[in-house]
């Protein structure tokens, strides 16, 4: 159900490959708190385990993020989605898509997988209700044939959660 544009993906450019290797080493030395990288031999798709922070609505719950890197990373943001089941959160759709500006319009090549993870955990931690976005059903229906969240025209209206 989640969008796997795997077949259409091109190989990583040299700069992307280099940077991801560096990020991986940096992650191994200094992983962001609450995250575990699941080791595979695929540099272009990372699966990262997230553990809800203590004292928040998601404490002790474990989720999985899938991070797919485009050929021209870091000039273009990676595609980041939650694998099923996605946490119940006002900015996370049931198909795993995340409404978070840095993953789309506000991406900067100075960001890393690690900094994205920290932003996502902070978004989870500041949530006060466990519920889906209001337009969940309509949005998910629109994405049925495996559309990437990067093709969505997002509206970022709420910076509190």
């Amino acid at each position, binding site marked *: 159900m989640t969008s796997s544009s795997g077949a259409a993906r091109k190989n990583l450019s*040299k*700069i992307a*490959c*280099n*940077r991801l290797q*560096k*990020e991986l080493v940096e992650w191994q030395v200094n992983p962001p708190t609450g995250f575990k990288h699941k080791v595979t031999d695929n540099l272009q798709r990372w699966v990262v385990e997230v553990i809800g922070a203590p004292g928040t609505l998601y404490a002790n719950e474990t989720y999985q993020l899938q991070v797919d890197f485009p050929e*021209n990373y*870091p*000039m*273009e943001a990676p595609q980041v989605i939650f694998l099923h089941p996605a946490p119940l959160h006002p900015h996370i759709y049931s198909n795993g898509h995340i409404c978070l500006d840095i993953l789309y319009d506000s991406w*900067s*090549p*100075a960001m890393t997988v690690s900094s994205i993870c920290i932003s996502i955990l902070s978004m989870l931690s500041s949530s006060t209700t466990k519920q889906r976005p209001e337009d969940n059903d309509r949005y998910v229906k629109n994405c049925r044939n495996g559309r990437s969240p990067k093709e969505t025209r997002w509206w970022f209206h709420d910076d509190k959660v």
Partner: protein
Amino acid sequence: MRVVKMKWHAVASWTWDAQDETCGICRMAFDGCCPDCKLPGDDCPLIWGVCNHAFHLHCILKWVNSQTSQAHCPMCRREWQFKG
């Protein structure tokens, strides 16, 4: 005593005068070069923005050219303008 120098050999070292050690885009050392180049030096120069952040010229060009609207500095998000 008089010493006559028959020949001599100069050795110099250089470094870019940047505040950071690595390029925020490719994460390679400034004393090295961007991943697309082989040798550090004038062929893979650093460039500064008006905001005073430095990057490999090749890296910031890739970022600026990949943006459809005005590019921002990857570090501080200010409008990217090359420092004259």
